[in-house]
């Protein structure tokens, strides 16, 4: 037999039922959407970093192809070119590459040739450029010509616009996906809120007719749905962060692929997800609840 009711120990119950059969399904759907949104967010960060990396690599480097003239050996010509370029303003480093690297570049076209030394394979000089005031291709060419070298400067900046454009497309596509998924999450929460309110129309009606302010009523639903969305957001964010962590561990510093390098600090980007999900849910609940109350 249950204990007799003691009014002095009574604590007010929630105006809304503590549990709703729809809550677990809503929580799952919002968690999945948050997971996808966080994953896309990590992709945006990694893609943007990769794009910046490609661009800075291209702006910070140039390659010079040096051909030997007269009796000079290719190695000597390359060494002379490196020395000439090292003194040019805007150059931070000039280094003659080993002949094997040059051979490796032409191997796809020539195949395994027994003795490449018999061929007039040009040598390469890698030039590091000052990031702030890089030397131009014309300056480098002039310096090489001044030393009587037969050389061609491969200006990487020709590719930068294409790379930047490609990187921008990747970033914007990912950002659009992120917005779409976030929008879908908001729409799902709004739809669920409307369904929840419709199911709790009796509560809304009683509170409204008993003199509750509109804000009192909408706050109940805001808190309910914000709490569900926050839990779902935390679960989705944790899942995305865990997957990101796995990719980081498997792929090392470059993540799963050099095209999408994930850093540990990137995983912190999922932290706002529960808060954002809760805010979207609260806003959706407020708008829906106020709309319903207006119709009463």
């Amino acid at each position, binding site marked *: 037999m249950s204990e007799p009711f003691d009014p002095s120990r009574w604590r007010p*119950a929630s*105006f809304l039922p503590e549990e709703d059969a729809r809550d677990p399904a809503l929580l799952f759907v919002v968690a999945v959407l948050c997971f996808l949104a966080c994953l896309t967010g990590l992709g945006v960060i990694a893609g943007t970093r990769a794009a910046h990396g490609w661009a800075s690599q291209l702006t910070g480097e140039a390659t010079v192809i040096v051909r030997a003239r007269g009796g000079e050996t290719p190695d000597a010509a390359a060494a002379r070119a490196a020395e000439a370029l090292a003194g040019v303003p805007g150059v931070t480093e000039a280094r003659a590459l080993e002949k094997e690297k040059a051979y490796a570049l032409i191997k796809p076209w020539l195949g395994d040739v027994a003795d490449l030394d018999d061929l007039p394979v040009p040598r390469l000089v890698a030039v590091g450029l000052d990031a702030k005031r890089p030397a131009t291709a014309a300056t480098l060419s002039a310096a090489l010509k001044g030393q009587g070298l037969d050389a061609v400067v491969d200006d990487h900046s020709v590719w930068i616009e294409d790379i930047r454009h490609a990187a921008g497309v990747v970033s914007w596509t990912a950002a659009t996906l992120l917005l779409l998924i976030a929008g879908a999450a908001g729409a799902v929460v709004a739809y669920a809120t409307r369904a929840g309110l419709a199911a709790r129309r009796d509560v809304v009606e009683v509170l409204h007719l008993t003199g509750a302010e*509109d804000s009192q009523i909408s706050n109940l639903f805001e808190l309910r749905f914000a709490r569900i969305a926050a839990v779902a957001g935390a679960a989705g964010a944790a899942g995305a962060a865990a997957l990101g962590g796995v990719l980081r561990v498997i792929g090392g510093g470059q993540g799963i692929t050099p095209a999408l390098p994930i850093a540990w600090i990137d995983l912190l980007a999922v932290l706002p997800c529960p808060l954002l999900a809760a805010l979207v849910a609260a806003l959706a609940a407020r708008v829906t609840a106020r709309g319903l109350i207006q119709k009463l």
Partner: protein
Amino acid sequence: MTPPVDTSADEILRFAGVSMRYGRGPEVLSDVSLSLPRGSFHFVTGPSGAGKSSLLKLIYLAARPSSGSVRLFGEDIAATPTRELPRIRRRIGVVFQDLLLLDHLSAFDNTALPLRIAGHKPAEYRGDVAELLTWVGLGQRMNALPPTLAGGEKQRLAIARAVVNRPEILLADEPTGNVDHEMALRIYRLFVELNRLGTTVIIATHDQDLVARSARPVLHLEKGRLRPLPPQGPLAEPGE
């Protein structure tokens, strides 16, 4: 013929030429004018569809008239901003026709609802709620959920919730509709007691026997219009 309008300062409710329709439907109330003094006790009678519930809805501000004016507590409702309406609603207690009890809340929580909404602290009203529930005969069922209560118990619970905030007006829509005669008399005596304490009581009912025996003034509706009640000899006040 409509009843004469009382223009005394102690008027708590006034309808002046009030008509009402739902959406674009036909008028459910037409040109209703009335004035009720504070502390009065009225029955609203009439056949089904006469507009009794609609009249009460206008009073507890669940609907607005399509024409005419409603003054409650001296305030013109049409001119009152929407944000002010909850404050006025809190001065009115309603026993709804379908009771509108919240099934997930105990009898105690259901009764305390208006006090919580009004912002009172539990310590201020715990004792009052328990006393009121005991007074309506639910002292042993305070922790029960409405679905576990009998019809008469639910009715008394709805009444307890309606009066717990000591409203200035108590409206009851068919409060004895689902109870036996004895329970109907008990409920009626509750209303009489509240009226003696100063509450203005308006009861919409089909129970002609109760109306006839009470000898209280009647607002009789037919097809949305106030009509004089056919003369009936007053009987002794039930329970008095």
